[in-house]
Structure formats: C-alpha cells, structure tokens
C-alpha cells in the first residue's frame, strides 16, 4: 500500500525534512518513521521534501524512512459520521481510548468510519439510470430519524449497471455498480475526499434565511444568514465558547460540526457528556444525533490542529451536498492560525505581521469561502454556515487574525471584556458588532412573524446608541442633569440590556428563545417606551416610571415566560396599560 519515498535528514518539532522528492506529490499523505506517524508533504525543493507530522515526533531519528501513500490528506465520508468524535485528522477518539487507555499515544491507526456496522439502506436509482457526480443513489438511516443521503462521488458519472436491493449494508458493501466509459466501478456508501479541496456545487444562492440560534442578541440584533459566515472575537473569558456551545445546541441547523481547535480538553468533554442528554427542540431527539465533534485540544500535536479545520469543513460540505443546513463552529481559529505560524517558523519562512506567514490571509479567505447556501450537484439546496471564534492576544482587535477575518465574514460579534466582568452575558458589545445580513433576512422575519422586525430592531439600536451618548453626559454631570425624556431613554435601554440582550446560557428557560418570544419581547419593550415617553412628555417625573412594578416583570420575563407561554406577554402588556394608564390619567389634566 505504501512504499518508501525518502529518508529523514532533519527534525524540529512537528516538521521534518527528508531526502527524496521524486516519488511524492505536494500535499501527499505520508507515513513518517518506523512508527508510521501520519504526515503531509508541505514542501518540495530539489531532492528534498518537507513534511508536517500530525503526531508527536519525540524519539524520531534521522535516517528513518518516509513512506508515500499516493493520496492527499483526506477524510472518510459515509454514514457513521454523526455522533462521532474525532481528532484533527479524523481518528476516532473513542477507539483510541479503547486501544490505548486514557492517554493518546502515537501511531494510532483506525478506520474513521466503522466498517462492521450495518445501515438500513434504500436505493433511489435503478439500473440504466444515467447519473452524474453528487446524485443521490440511496438513503441510509444514520440515526432513527436522520436520513443519510448516499451520493455518487462528485468526480464520477456514468450508467448504473447494478443496484443492491433495499437491506442492511456496511459502508464497504457494494450498493451499486457504475459503468464509466469502459470501466465498471463498484460503489459503496464510503467515499474519501481530500480535505483541502472544497466540494463542488452548481452555484451559490442568495443567503436570505437567518440561522436561528435562540440567542436574542444574535437573532434579533445581529443575525447571520444560513450559509453565512460570522466571527466572534473576544479576550479570554469573554464568552466565545459558551456562545458557540449555545449555537451548537440551539441553532436550527440539521447538522452541527463542532471543531475544538487548540482549546481545552474539559470543554470537549462537556459537549460529549451533555449533548446526548439535551433534546433538540425541533426534532425531539438528543442533540448528539445531529452533531459531529472534532477535538484537537491545545496539548495535542500542533500540525493536526492545522488540519482539524479542514477535516471539519469537508464533513460539513458533505452534509450540505445532501441538501441539509449545516452549521460549523470553530473554536478557535486563532489557534489554527498559530499552528500555521508555528510550522511556518520551523520552516524559517519570511514572517509577515507578528510572525504569521504571509499566506495567513489567503488561508482564512479559503476557509470562510467554504461557507455558502448553494444549489447542489444533485439539485437539492443546502448550506454551510461558519461561526469562527477569534482569540486576539490581549483582547486587541487590531491584531492580524481578527483584522483579516473581518475581511471574509459579514457578521461580527464583538465580545467585550468590561461587559464580561460586569457579568453581562453574552458579553457581545452591541455598538461594536455588526451584521451585513440585516436587509437580506428581513423578508423572512416578516413572513414568519408578520411583524416589522427590522424596523423594531433598528429602533432599539437607535435607543441603544442614544444611551451611549447620554451615558457620556451622565458620567460627567450625573443623571439628574438630563431632561426626563432622555432619562426615559435610559429606562428603556436598561430594559433592552437586562431584559433582552442579557441571556443566561445556563438557565433552562432563558437559554433558548424562540423567534416569537424574541419579537414579543422587543415589541413589549418598545411599547413600554412609547407609553412612557408620552407620559413623561406630559410632565410626569421619571422616577414614577422607574418604580412601576411592571419594570421588574419585563426584566424577568426572559426567564419566567417559557417559549410555550407567550400569552403571558399579553398579561404584561396589560400591566403596562394599567399602570401607565393610571399615570397617564393623573398627568393628562
């Protein structure tokens, strides 16, 4: 299967050089040393090759052999991906644990997809059909409810000459035969795809459906579209991971790919232990049944961290091709960029900004470009949405990874240290964040809720920016100097901040808000504002508004009104009417 293509001449951390370059190709997967560690050719020059090794190289010697495989670094695709947890180069962590115990040892080699398990398969093509790449050959039930659409490899096409009857098959059992020119090819449910090559589609569609996350500050204020790309930068401890976990839990995607890229082991364990017990509000099934996890924690080899992003996005594209909406979370893209930097440093390449290689921007662009809402080769539509965390050193957004990322995303959720230390969560700063999808998804909101979401959202944003101006003044002269109409703005924005923007991810009722709940909350707060403003304009002192019992009711609504009891908002609105009505009457004369 593999033959010797060179001998190691130099080793420095994850990078080795070897003599011999004739029989390998750029980006070819190779096996390094007697332990046959997985590596990838990242440079060819003269008779020398440079290889990045995805496993720990301690103990490796010069003179050791390198074996070629003739294949690029690829992932295995097929039923069985869902509910898996892989390392950065798609090795199944549970099998590694079974074989090696609690610690990850070198040289582990396992099939990424189980070869023994049988899947209930139903063919969707018949003998004689002319088929093109991407076409759906049949479906296999990947979970009790999830339909895995088995597709022809995008590079293949031909005439079907044989089809397996409906039944139970493993991923390596033949399910069809295909005549391609003179050749007949046996098709199985398993295929391989090189991770660094985007899977093809027909064309991009407009991204005008929001990815609903149940997070109010995201959906209501800074929505990302299905097929869109969002960046979530923030200093340590500001809430990147909690936000990403929340999206992974509640987003209305059919498949979630979660990449723990150079982050904590405990965080992956948390997902692993929690997701099987959390129920997807839409399907009623455990969240794990739509999730694929890629875990390359910070102490695992750095080259595999670089690969993990590609492993994840390729799996995401594969489900997109079936016609599903996929959301991919990468936590954190900065660690991936640092892996690039480390390998680049060992290669003694010319560094650009802060030691990062000059191709950093190019790599980021390639990654985010793989997001999209597309027309698939098989006529279906699917999307990959990307949410990338960014961890800027010192929380300073002017650093290269944040800056370059900004060029390739259209939605920016800026986390803020001071909000986090005041325990305002999610600590997303509403003045620094933006979404370029607002106009695009406005129509969807109108259709779904019959309400002018965008108008209300913009009104609330106006109030918030007014608040920021006013609080500058308050800082200088105190609130008493402001006219009551301006203090009314501050009353309302407190409700927006505490009642809507703040959302506790750890509290059952508050963790997820349906869009109906979100829009009702927004409506209610704005209604409070209109009524209050009218009364204040008539001369009522602001503290009477401040002290109304309904204020507390509104702030607590997020955790006291469940998604199923939206009628309670009518009650609260009635309380506003009653309490404000009274004041109104008093000051009308």
């Amino acid at each position: 299967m593999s033959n010797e293509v060179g001998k190691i001449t130099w080793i420095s951390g994850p990078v080795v050089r070897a003599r011999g370059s004739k029989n390998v190709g750029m980006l070819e997967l190779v096996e390094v040393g007697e332990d046959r560690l997985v590596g990838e050719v990242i440079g060819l020059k003269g008779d020398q090759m440079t290889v990045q090794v995805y496993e720990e190289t301690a103990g490796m010697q010069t003179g050791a052999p390198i074996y070629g495989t003739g294949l690029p670094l690829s992932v295995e695709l097929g039923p069985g991906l869902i509910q898996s947890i892989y390392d950065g180069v798609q090795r199944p962590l549970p099998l590694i644990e079974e074989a090696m115990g609690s610690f990850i040892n070198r040289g582990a080699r396992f099939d990424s997809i189980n070869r023994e398990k049988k899947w209930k398969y139903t063919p969707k093509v018949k003998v004689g059909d002319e088929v093109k790449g991407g076409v759906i050959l049949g479906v296999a039930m990947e979970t009790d409810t999830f339909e895995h659409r088995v597709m022809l490899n995008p590079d293949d096409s031909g005439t079907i000459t044989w089809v397996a009857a409906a039944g139970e098959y493993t991923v390596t059992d033949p399910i069809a035969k295909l005549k391609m020119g003179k050749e007949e090819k046996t098709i199985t449910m398993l295929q391989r795809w090189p991770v660094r090559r985007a899977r093809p589609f027909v064309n991009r569609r407009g991204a005008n459906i929001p990815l609903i996350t149940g997070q109010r500050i995201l959906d209501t204020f800074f929505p990302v579209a299905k097929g869109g790309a969002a960046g979530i930068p923030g200093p340590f401890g500001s809430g990147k991971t909690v936000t990403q976990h929340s999206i992974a839990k509640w987003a209305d995607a059919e498949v979630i790919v979660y990449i723990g890229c150079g982050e904590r082991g405990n965080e992956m364990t948390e997902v692993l232990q929690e997701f099987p017990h959390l129920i997807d509000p839409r399907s009623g099934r455990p969240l794990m049944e739509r999730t694929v996890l890629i875990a390359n924690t910070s102490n695992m080899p750095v080259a595999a961290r670089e690969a993990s992003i590609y492993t994840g996005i390729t799996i995401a594209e594969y489900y997109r091709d079936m016609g599903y909406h996929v959301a991919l979370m990468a936590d954190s893209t900065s660690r991936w960029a640092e892996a690039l930097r480390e390998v680049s440093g060992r290669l003694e390449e010319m560094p650009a900004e802060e030691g990062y290689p000059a191709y950093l921007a190019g790599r980021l662009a390639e990654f985010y470009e793989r997001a999209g809402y597309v027309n698939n080769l098989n006529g279906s539509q699917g999307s990959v949405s990307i949410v990338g965390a960014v961890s800027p050193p010192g929380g300073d957004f002017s650093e290269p990874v944040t800056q370059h990322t900004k060029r390739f995303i259209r939605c920016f959720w800026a986390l803020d240290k001071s909000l986090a230390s005041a325990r305002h969560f999610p600590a997303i700063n509403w003045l620094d964040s933006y979404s370029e999808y607002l106009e695009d998804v406005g129509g969807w909101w109108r259709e779904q809720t019959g309400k002018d979401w965008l108008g209300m959202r913009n009104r609330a944003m106006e109030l918030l920016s007014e608040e920021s101006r006013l609080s500058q003044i308050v800082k200088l002269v105190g609130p008493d100097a402001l006219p009551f109409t301006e203090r009314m703005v501050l009353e309302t924005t407190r409700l927006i901040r505490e009642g809507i923007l703040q959302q506790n991810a750890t509290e059952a009722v508050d963790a997820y808000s349906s869009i109906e709940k979100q829009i009702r909350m927004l409506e209610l707060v704005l209604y409070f504002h209109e009524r209050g403003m009218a009364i204040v304009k008539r001369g009522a002192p602001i503290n009477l508004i401040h002290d109304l019992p309904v204020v507390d009711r509104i702030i607590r609504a997020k955790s006291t009104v469940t998604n199923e009891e939206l009628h309670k908002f009518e009650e609260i609105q009635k309380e506003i009417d009653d309490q404000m009505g009274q004041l109104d009457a008093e000051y009308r004369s």
Partner: protein
Amino acid sequence: MSNVTVQGGQEVVGVSRIEGPIMVVEGGTNVSYDEVVEIKDARGNLRRGRVLEVGEGFAVVQVFAGSTGLSIDGTSVRFLGTTLHIPVAEEMLGRIFDGLGTPIDGGPEPLTDRYADVNGQPINPTARIYPRDYIQTGISTIDGVNTLLRGQKLPLFSGAGMPHDQLAAQIVRQATLGKEAGAPQTEGEEFAIVFAAMGVKNDVADYFRRSFTESGALTRVAMFLNLADDPPVERVVTPRAALTLAEYLAYERDMHVLVVLTDMTNYGEALRQISNVRGEVPSRKGYPGYLYSDLASLYERTGRIRTSKGSITQIPILTMPNDDITHPMPDLTGYITEGQIVLGRELNFAGVYPPVAVLPSLSRLMKDGIGKGRTRDDHPRWGAQLYAGYAKTQDVRALASVIGEEELSEVDQKYLKFGRAFEREFVNQSFTENRTIERTLEIGWKLLSMLPKSELTRVNLDEIEKYYKGDDATN
C-alpha cells in the same frame, strides 16, 4: 548524580558550537529528537541536556545547567537514547527535589522502577470526567464567587509584592472536598500536594515549606525546586517533572493532587531566552510563537479521568510584569486555564486580604459545581447578583468622583455603601479564617440586603423572600 543515566549510548567528544545554553554537536548518528544527553566537561563533571533539533550529522542540544565552564574541545556528549524520564513513587511525597527531579534533601533516590516521561501525553477527551466536585477553600472570594473544582486549573494572577504566596498557602492548608451548605462538616479527604518553584527566591520556597510544616502537611508534599540562583534552563523541565509525579499519584494511585506552580512568569522567561538564542521568529514581546502550545502542554495536565478516582487541580501563580494582564504570560495563561483569580493592587494598598479583584476574576467551571445539591440552590444567582452589584458600584464610584457623593441619587448612595461593605466584610478575611459555604452565602445576603429589592434582578423573588433582610420599603 543523575539516576536516569543509562549505561552505554553513543558518545561524541568535542562540540562544534556553544552559545548560551545551546550547543551544536556534530558526528552523532541516529540521534533522536528530544533525546536526553549527558554532558561531561573537561573535569569530568556531568550535566544533562536534551536535543532540540536534529539534522544529518548534527544535533542542537539544550544544556539544562547552562554552558558555563564548557569548552569546544573538552566537552563530550553521550546520547542516552530516550526522552527525559523521572522516577515516580508515592514515597516521593515528603521529599524535596531539584528542578530536574533529583533529590536534594539528603535522602536516597526514590526506590522504584517506575520511570515516566516528563512530557506526559495528552488526555483523550473521551477519557475525561468533567469536573463537578467543588473544593471548599474557606475563602469567600473563591468559594462564593469563583468556586474551584477538583480537576480545574485556576491560576493566581498577581504582581510583585502582593500576597499571592500567602493566598496559595491558605488555599492549600484549608482545601477540603466541599459539602452542601448545612451538611455536617466531616474531616475532608486530604490532598497530596506537588509544589514546583521556578526561579523564585529561596525565602519563597522556605515560606511554603514552613507553611506546609505548620499545617502538618509536609508528609503529603513533594517539592521540586528550581530557585532564582539555579540554572534558568532547568526551569523548563521543573513543572513537567512536578506534573509527571502528580499524574502518577492521581491516575495510578487514586489521590487528589493539588499542584502549585510558581512563578510561571519565570518559566516564560526561560522559554523566551532559549528561543532568542536559537534565533526563532518571535511573536509578541520576544516570546516564541509556540508559547501558547507550550503553556497548554503544562496546564492541560489537569483533570480527572474515568479510570481513576484521583484528580489533579492546578493553581499556577504568576506575577504580571507591570501588573499588565495583557502581557503574553497572563494573557496566554488566561486563554488556557479555566478562569483566573486576579489580585488587585488597590485592595492590597487598602489593607484588604486576600486582595482578590473580584470583577476580573472568574471560575469557568463554577457553574457546574454549585447550586442545588452541591452548595445551595440560590448560589448561582446570588453570585451573579453580587457581581452585578459590585460592578455597578464601580460606575457609581466613578460618578461620585465627578459630581461628589452628596449629589448621588439615594440608590447610588446605597451602592457606595454596599461596595465598601463588600470589600471589608466579604473580600476581606483573615489568613486563618476558614469560612463555611453557608457563612459565605450569609455574608453575601447581608450585603445584598443593603440594596433596594428592585435592584436585585438576578436573584428570583422566592430567594428575596427567603434571604433578604433589608428594610426596603419599595416594592
């Protein structure tokens, strides 16, 4: 001198270049990456080093003790054919070792045939148990609002001249497995303690030794000391040696181990120095681009695994140069650890002990170890409310400094009082005061009761009903 000396191994006489702690050795064959070497100077004295880079016919070697006294011709290098290993045994508790794990207390080499690689191996995330059991430290700013769990890594971010050593010693002395509020206090299970000193002064090490002796813990402590006057390069190994023993005790002997690493800033210095000598492309402030990964390879050696009852909890201490939390050492540490306890200069000046700056401090895992059945039902919201209240106090203070206290609204004046009381009664406690969790909760409610009920939007109404003690007339 060294107990890992393997007899045999190829020997090369003469080196081709020496620069700082780095030397280039030519002529070895089959040298392996990260291999340990034994270096003999012209007088026959031995020191150790390890291979940082290998090429055809040459190896770059890092000398732990530094290169002072080594000469080009008079030095011979023996390649030992293995990565750096230290002996591990339960009887190492109660003993003192140098930064490479060699005994320096006059006692014998540990009697064991178990040797472990100081680099360790990453824990498979599927093998971990997510931390949930809280450790009661008896310190309100930790137990109340930054709860520490078994298996967590929670650093102390401090600055020169602040009492981080006292705080760490108090934590170590008082730490016991937490109980639900109101549950009878039984004798807690005792922790084994692994203490690693990197580049700190002798009196710091002495302080800890005395403190362990006084609390009767000394027999449960293993100390790895690389002091200020010890070779800086050795510092790169010290925490690894310590964690290697900790892993053995936790995962093979089922012990609960507390690891204290001090001072991580000195560790970072050593790493930076080696990187600079090697001419590597620096990232920020001269630190190598792999600083994050390197620190992670230490801090991630924390946690619990399913195959053992033990746990490793890490409390790294680091002094922030210029009290700057954005400096690469605290910054990258914060990106890896599960929160941080930050000590504040102003509180320290004001005589508050422990001077924990509550707002920038955080325990990420707290949410999973507190609340109903663990501490008390109201604990999470109580904590959020205290935070919110104290955060608001900061705004009010800023305002008061502009318009004067008298001009503040009535509510804001209450916040000022709350803030002062919070620092004096909640944050402040004595070095020997060991508060129960209910005592901490009680103090917190007493303080919250200084604020009007309408301000308490983070706790729920039932809790206000039950615990609020103020004479608030609004609502």
